[in-house]
C-alpha cells in the first residue's frame, strides 16, 4: 500500500479551556476520498487550519506527503490545496482569471492552467459566468458560482492532498452533483481528498472512508458500510414522538422485534432492524400510532445518518438525556 498523503497522529489543540482537537488520528491515502464529519464546533476547521499551517498544534504530529507539516509549514502548503469554508477573494476577478492564477501559483504552465480552468468550468457548468468579473459586496457572481470557482481553484493543479471545507454550500442541486463527480475524479486520478462537511447524506455517496468527530475526538471511523454497522439489507424505522410524549422504545425490552441500534435525536427515534422483521415492525408502529402514542412513523433502508447520530450523541448522553446506541 502506498504511503498516506495525510497522516495525523494524536493531534491536540486547545483554545483556553476548550479542547478543540483531542488526540485526533486519521489517514488519507492517495486515491482516497475521506469524509470528515461532525456537528458545528466538533473541531473540523481547527484540524484543517493546522494542516495548512494557520494554527500550531499543542501536541501530536501532522505529515503531508511525508513532510512534517508542523516543522515545515511552507513545504506542507505546497502539497495541500484548500477550499476554505469562507468565500475566496474573487472581487475584481473573473472565474477564468481566478482559476488560472491558482494554477500558476502552483507551478502550472500558462497553457496548462488555461486548459485546466476551461475543463473545470465545463465540468462544473459555470461557462456562462466564466468571463464575468465578481464585484465587491457579492455582486457580479452569485454565491454558488463563487463557491464553485473556489472549488475549481483548489482542484485545478495536481497536488497530493486536496482539502474541501463544505464545498457545496450555496451550490444548486444539479451543480452539486457535478462537483461530487469532480471530487470522485480527483480521487481516481490519485489525489487524496479530505472532505469536511456536516452533510452526512451527501458525503455518503462520494467517500471511501469516514471519520466522525465529536467534541474534538474521533468517535467513529471506517468505510460507510462499516459505519452503518449492518448489512445493506437493514431497515430503519423512524418514530416521530409527540412533544413531551413518552418514548415507546425507551426500554428496548418493550419493543416486540429485535433492534440492532437505537438512536434518539430530539423527537425522532431511529431504530435499525433486519429486513425480515419489517412486517411486525410496521404492525407495531401502526398500533402505536392508532393509540396515539406516537405522531407518525416511516420505514426506509438504513442510512449512515443514524450511525452518525449514534456516534455523535453518545458522547453527550448524560447532558441531553439521549440514550446510548444499544447494540443488542
Amino acid at each position: 500500500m502506498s504511503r498516506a498523503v495525510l497522516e495525523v497522529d494524536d493531534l491536540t489543540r486547545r483554545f483556553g479551556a476548550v479542547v478543540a482537537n483531542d488526540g485526533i488520528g486519521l489517514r488519507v491515502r492517495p486515491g482516497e476520498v475521506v469524509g470528515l464529519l461532525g456537528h458545528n464546533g466538533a473541531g473540523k476547521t481547527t484540524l484543517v487550519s493546522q494542516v495548512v499551517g494557520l494554527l500550531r498544534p499543542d501536541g501530536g504530529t501532522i505529515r503531508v506527503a511525508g513532510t512534517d507539516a508542523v516543522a515545515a509549514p511552507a513545504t506542507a502548503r505546497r502539497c495541500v490545496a484548500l477550499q476554505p469554508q469562507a468565500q475566496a477573494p474573487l472581487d475584481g476577478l473573473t472565474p477564468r482569471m481566478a482559476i488560472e492564477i491558482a494554477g500558476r501559483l502552483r507551478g502550472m504552465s500558462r497553457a496548462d492552467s488555461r486548459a485546466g480552468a476551461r475543463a473545470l468550468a465545463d465540468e462544473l457548468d459555470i461557462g456562462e459566468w466564466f468571463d464575468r468579473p465578481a464585484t465587491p459586496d457579492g455582486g457580479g457572481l452569485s454565491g454558488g458560482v463563487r463557491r464553485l470557482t473556489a472549488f475549481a481553484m483548489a482542484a485545478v493543479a495536481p497536488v497530493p492532498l486536496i482539502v474541501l471545507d463544505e464545498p457545496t454550500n450555496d451550490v444548486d442541486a444539479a451543480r452539486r452533483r457535478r462537483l461530487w463527480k469532480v471530487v470522485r475524479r480527483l480521487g481516481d486520478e490519485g489525489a487524496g481528498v479530505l472532505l469536511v462537511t456536516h452533510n452526512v447524506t451527501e458525503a455518503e455517496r462520494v467517500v471511501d472512508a469516514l471519520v466522525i468527530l465529536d467534541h474534538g475526538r474521533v468517535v467513529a471511523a471506517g468505510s460507510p458500510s462499516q459505519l452503518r454497522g449492518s448489512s445493506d439489507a437493514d431497515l430503519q424505522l423512524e418514530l416521530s414522538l409527540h412533544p413531551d410524549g413518552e418514548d415507546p422504545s425507551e426500554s428496548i425490552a418493550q419493543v416486540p422485534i429485535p433492534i440492532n441500534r437505537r438512536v434518539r435525536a430530539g423527537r425522532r427515534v431511529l431504530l435499525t432492524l433486519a429486513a425480515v422483521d419489517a412486517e411486525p415492525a410496521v404492525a407495531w408502529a401502526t398500533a402505536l400510532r392508532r393509540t396515539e402514542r406516537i405522531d407518525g412513523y416511516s420505514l426506509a433502508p438504513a442510512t449512515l445518518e443514524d450511525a452518525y447520530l449514534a456516534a455523535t450523541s453518545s458522547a453527550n448522553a448524560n447532558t441531553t438525556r439521549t440514550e446510548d446506541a444499544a447494540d443488542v
Partner: protein
Amino acid sequence: MSEQNTLSPPAPRSAGVPPRIGIWLSYGNLLRWMMAQTGAMLPFVIVVQALLAAGIIIGFGFVIPDIDTSSAQFLSTGTPTVLLMFIGLVMVPHSVAQARTTGTFTYLRSLPVPRPLLLLADLAIWLLVALPSVAVAVVVAHLRYGFGYSFDWPVLLTASVLASVTATAVGYAIAVSLPPLITQLVTQVLVFFVMLFSPVTFPASQLPAWFQAVHDVLPFRAAADLLRAGLLADTYTASWRDLVVLLVWCALGVAIGVRALTRRD
C-alpha cells in the same frame, strides 16, 4: 462509482512534494490577483485624493486670513504627505481589517507562496494607488496659488516612495495587531493627529518644544520635510535624520506585518 474506480486508468498525479516555484513567478501572479481587486477602485481613489487635496489647500487657506506666499507654499507642500498618510493609515488598515473579517487574509495565508510576499504585493499595489496623490496635490496647489516649484527629482521620488511605503507598512501593522473594529477607530484618530497636530501643513516652530521633540521621532514631520525638500529644493533641504526616522518606521511596520503573516497562533 466503484465500477468507475476500476475502469479509469490512474492519471499521473504524484503523491510527492510538488517542486518549489520561482519567487518572481509567485510575486507576479499575486500582483495580478491583488491588482484586479484593488485596481478597480483606482479611479475612485484618485478623485478622493483630488477632493482631499482641494479641501486642505483651499480649505485651510480660508483659516489663515491674508495668507502669504511662504505660508501657502508650506501648506501646499505638506498636502502630499497628508494624502499619503491618509491612504497608508486609513485606507490600508480598512482594507486589511476587511480582509481579516471576510476570511481573505486567512485564505491568502494558506496559499503555496512565501507569506512575506503577500505583504510585498500589498506594498506595491498601495504604492501605485498612493503615488498619483503627490501629482494631484501639486496641481491643485498650483491652480490655487500659482507659485512655482523647484523640483529635486531624486529627493522627491525617494521621499514619495518611502513615505508611501512607510505609511502603508505602519497601517498594515496596525490592522494586523488590533481587532478590526478598534483598527477603524485608531486610524480615524491617527488621521486627525496627522492633519491637526502634526507639523505637516504648518511649521514645527508653532508647536511647544516638547511636542516638537515628539515629532522628531514620529514619521509625519520627517515625511513632510523630505517631500518638501523635493518640491521646493531652493528653500528647503533634505536631512539624513528624517530619512533614517522614516526607514526605521518602515522596517518596524514591515517586521510586524511579516510576523502576523507568518505566525501560527
